[in-house]
């Protein structure tokens, strides 16, 4: 199923249009890079694709149909700052289950250790937390993953670990990935093509 954005336009309140007339589409299994200077609305576009915002103009469709309003959202987003994307009072096991029952093979590939499930977010490092956020976003219903600066805050080893796990799964499930990053070398390594906002 193809993900399409047609004529997307968005602005916050009465401020000038952040962008207008954005068109692009992604095939299943495709890894696409998105780049552009800061402040051009990359994160906002990601939020629209993942259903956190509604576009003011245009529409996003998956396989020709509008994205579902209820139930599991097939386009999942992973944010740059994992510490802001988890409930600080929940143990990690509970956070992980928000996206359904996690796949054991994926947890192993992401290097998530069993004993971490009993910990609170402040007892884990940023890299460890991000692994949970990635695992949570990769439920069986995910068709497209939006990785908004997903590994920007992480060291190179953790970055490589997480991407190897994600790419393996994407290939197995024919899942598409949108990679937002300022790191041209990372984009080179990961992406089939790169678009500019």
């Amino acid at each position, binding site marked *: 199923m193809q993900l399409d954005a047609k004529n997307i336009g968005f602005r916050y309140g009465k401020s000038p249009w952040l962008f207008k007339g954005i068109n692009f589409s992604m095939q299943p299994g495709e890894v696409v890079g998105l780049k552009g*200077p800061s402040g051009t609305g990359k994160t906002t576009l990601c939020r629209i694709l993942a259903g956190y915002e509604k576009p003011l103009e245009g529409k996003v469709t998956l396989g020709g149909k509008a994205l579902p309003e209820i139930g599991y959202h097939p386009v999942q987003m992973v944010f*740059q700052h994992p510490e802001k994307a988890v409930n600080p009072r929940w143990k990690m096991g509970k956070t992980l289950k928000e996206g359904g029952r996690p796949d054991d093979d994926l947890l192993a590939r992401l290097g998530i250790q069993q004993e971490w499930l009993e910990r609170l977010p402040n*007892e884990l*490092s940023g*890299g460890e937390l991000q692994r949970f956020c990635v695992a949570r976003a990769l439920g069986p219903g995910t068709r497209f993953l939006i990785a908004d600066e997903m590994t920007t805050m992480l060291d*190179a080893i*953790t970055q490589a670990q997480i991407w190897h796990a994600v790419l393996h799964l994407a290939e197995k499930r024919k899942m598409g990935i949108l990679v937002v990053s300022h790191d041209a070398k990372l984009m*080179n390594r990961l992406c089939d093509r790169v678009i500019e906002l």
Partner: protein
Amino acid sequence: MPILEVENLSVTFRQYASGLKERNIRAISNLSVTLEQGEVLAVVGASGSGKSLLAHAILGILPANAETAGSIKYCGETLTAKRTQSLRGREIALVPQSVGYLDPLMRVGNQVRTAVRNGKPAEEQRKVFKRYKLKSVVEKLFPFELSGGMARRVLLSTAMVSGAKVIIADEPTPGLDPEALNEALLNLRELGDQGCAVMLITHDIDSALRIADKIAVFYAGTTVEIAPAKDFTGDGEHLRHPYSKALWGALPQNGFTPIPGSQPHSAALPPGCLFASRCEKATKECHQAQPDLRELRNGKVRCIHAT
């Protein structure tokens, strides 16, 4: 004489584990690093390796439940709490990591002006904003109205106008687009060339290499290697510590090869070498005692097997 000298620094946090039971978390152990005038030192390592804590320890802004041991000297004299307080913002400036360090209720232009020590505040602030390509409307904005990259540039501006001799930049680059990144790095290098000492804390080795003279590699709260920047080349054959080599090999433009496992948690540090559980070269000896930091080929390393 080094302008800043950190020797055997340890930082321990006292935490409540459950109920009234306390536990100690050793976030930094036996960390040593020196900073010379005119030098850019990059500190690289995973998150949770103690990079930011080092910055906070130098500036004396650790939380109240932290205990430190070891010494930090500025211009040869030990930094006491009182001395730190009079130096920070004047002689030693911090570019903080999080955008949360900006005052949410103050227009950002005014915030930068309060940091100006020489010259007219408004003029200096406009000059530095222009340099960072921040439009003149930005000075009237509040922090919540800025994008991530803009906020980052405002934080950098604050340190740039301070006229400090030691600049500690804690992850100043994430979220900057290539042009802004380039400008920020050039600016830090210029400060170094003008005689300031710059400590660039980052996990972006690539950016660090563009301006740094020396690189200190941190792992689990200690220095595992200090190397001249030029050693980060090829397959990493000039590097000394197995962790530095692994870090180098994991870069997207190199092998993109991960090694398994993750950094030990600071509440459960192993007695021996902190990297031993992930190290291919580890022997029985490595698990027994933490190796000392020793001189090797114009650098330093904390590994008994390094050659």
